[in-house]
């Protein structure tokens, strides 16, 4: 009986957690994974920049064939999705579950839009004769954006799982962890793209 009461108290406390007192979102193990992932991308940025410096003409020529407009639109799609996700977390904590779920769905939908635009861009790039083996620039282009796209697709799957799990609202600490980890992962996907886009498409 005592245990049941204790559990009920824990759940009540979780449901009414003061959002102003939030500490580290998610858990430490998850953040260790996030930092390892971000470090991997930092290494890719280093290797790309290093190789570019040894043959800038080859990289500039490849970059000229990219569709900057599609990259820009995708950047706007991602920053908008991050806004929706941050708003979703706020709504879930403020007990606006319905609005929170809609915002999570909107975030995932924008993720699908990003993926569709990126795949369209791949098709156009391949049709114009550029493949992974065309030049070092296109090797990096396909590898870096491909790994990022894989992260984004995983993020969409995670958001669907989070939305499904939280369909009745935040019922305990584990639900909170799901929401915070899902949101942080999505923001990481956005953060990585903030460097990928100018490095590949804009910097000359």
């Amino acid at each position, binding site marked *: 009986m005592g245990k049941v009461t204790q559990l009920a108290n824990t759940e009540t406390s979780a449901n009414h957690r003061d*959002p*102003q007192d*939030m*500490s*580290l*979102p998610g858990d430490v193990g998850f*953040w260790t994974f996030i*930092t390892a992932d*971000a*470090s991997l991308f*930092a290494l890719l*940025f*280093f290797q790309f*920049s*290093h190789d*570019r*410096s040894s043959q800038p003409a080859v990289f500039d020529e490849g970059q000229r064939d990219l569709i*900057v407009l599609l990259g*820009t639109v995708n*950047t*706007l799609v991602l*920053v*908008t999705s*991050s*806004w929706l*996700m*941050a*708003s979703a*977390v*706020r709504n879930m*904590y403020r007990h606006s579950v319905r609005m929170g779920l809609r915002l999570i769905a909107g975030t995932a939908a924008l993720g699908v839009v990003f993926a569709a635009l990126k795949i369209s861009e791949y098709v156009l790039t391949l049709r114009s004769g550029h493949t992974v083996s065309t030049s070092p620039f296109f090797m990096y282009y396909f590898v870096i954006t491909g790994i990022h796209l894989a992260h984004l697709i995983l993020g969409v799957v995670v958001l669907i799982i989070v939305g499904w799990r939280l369909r009745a609202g935040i019922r305990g600490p584990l639900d909170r962890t799901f929401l915070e980890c899902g*949101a*942080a992962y999505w*923001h*990481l996907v*956005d*953060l990585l793209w*903030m*460097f990928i*886009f*100018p*490095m590949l*498409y*804009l*910097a*000359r």
Partner: protein
Amino acid sequence: MLQTPQALRRAWIGLVAITVLSLVVAEFSAISAGVETAVVIAAAAIKGRIILVRYMGERSFPTWLRLYFGGWLVVCATVIIGFHFS
């Protein structure tokens, strides 16, 4: 700490504005390639900072995580800009 809806919206407006400005600098300005690269990558670092602070709740991170992401932004920007000038 959760941000207010106004703060979240302001962050989004800032991110959109910096993205568009970066595009204008890269595609339509007459500045040199090196300066252009420095500007668009610095803009990327600023956008990263906005995402970390406004959306990821960086201010509630423990010290090690704040240092990591602060260093990550600086290292990424410095490496990309540095190699462009090398």
